[in-house]
């Protein structure tokens, strides 16, 4: 079965064999960055971990789920139209929804939705362009919608079990991203990999995303109700 062969490929020689390593490098980069920032600056901020720790932790986990799909698409460069549209849509949606959700939980709906939309649209376009304009359009639409929806959901759950909802949202998004990796493998299992690269891109992208997320969460503008 294809799913069994996909699971086997997670330890294989194709790009799928690098997905777990990419996740690991992304997580390591995020945690090291947070650790250093915490030691240098963030620990002096009152109630830093109770206020922001939970959401930054999940942001790091989320980027570790999203970035392997970017690597996988970069490795194949071009996908068939239908598959590429799904790639653009899924990447835009999840990349918009999750960071928007986390940031709206600490800073309010405006900042969360703007950040979610920008991130969702950028990564949606970046991944979706593997099949041309249709994937790009899907990326823009999904990033736009995901960013707004993530922030709105967080803000509406603000007074009603926000943290358990964060866990549920994260788990569902994790399953979606895993299935995206599987779908790309299924579409491309007979094709050759086009691009070989080291993990510099993973580390750099994680570093940029986590830095912006942390800065916005701690020092960024926030809605009045967040004090």
């Amino acid at each position, binding site marked *: 079965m294809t799913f069994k062969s996909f699971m086997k490929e997670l330890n294989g020689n194709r790009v799928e064999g690098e997905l777990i390593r990419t996740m690991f490098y992304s997580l390591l980069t995020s945690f090291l960055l947070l650790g250093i920032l915490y030691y240098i600056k963030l620990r002096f901020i009152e*109630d830093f*971990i*109770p206020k922001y*720790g*939970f959401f930054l*932790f999940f942001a790091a986990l989320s980027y570790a789920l999203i970035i392997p799909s970017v690597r996988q698409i970069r490795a194949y460069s071009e996908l068939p139209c239908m598959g590429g549209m799904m790639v653009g849509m899924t990447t835009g949606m999840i990349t918009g929804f999750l960071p928007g959700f986390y940031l709206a939980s600490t800073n309010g709906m405006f900042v969360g939705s703007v950040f979610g939309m920008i991130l969702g649209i950028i990564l949606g376009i970046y991944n979706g362009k593997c099949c041309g304009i249709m994937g790009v359009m899907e990326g823009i639409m999904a990033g736009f919608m995901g960013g707004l929806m993530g922030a709105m959901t967080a803000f509406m759950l603000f007074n009603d079990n926000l943290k358990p909802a964060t866990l549920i949202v994260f788990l569902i998004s994790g399953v979606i991203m895993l299935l995206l990796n599987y779908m790309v493998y299924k579409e491309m299992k007979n094709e050759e990999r086009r691009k070989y690269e080291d993990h510099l891109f993973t580390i750099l992208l994680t570093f940029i995303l986590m830095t912006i997320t942390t800065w916005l969460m701690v020092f960024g503008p926030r*809605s*009045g109700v967040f004090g």
Partner: protein
Amino acid sequence: MAFIMIVLILVVGRFIFAKGNNGNGNVVVNNEQTGEGQKIILSQKDLNYKDAVAETGKPIVISADSSVRGCLRSVVFNVNGKKYSKYLRSPEDTLELPGLSKGTYTFSCSMGMGFGKLIVK
């Protein structure tokens, strides 16, 4: 690699959750007490709250008159990182805030749809 990653997540997660339970960053105070204090009655104007005025330093008892409808009856204040929230089902229900220092405090309904200002003079 996967094993190391899981251990890493568990270690960092444990640190975050252990430290996260000590603070009051996400505390929701759904208060029931009926102590003394200056009484503030919230009203609705269009789809938001009318601005309310209070005196500095005195505890505040907030209620909402019958003009306040829908989700605006569930009021949320965020004062110094601590949330005060209550569903003011009837005009008799009250939400109590501690004495506040001079300034303007923004509050909203629990869904973040309607906003208002509490001006402390």
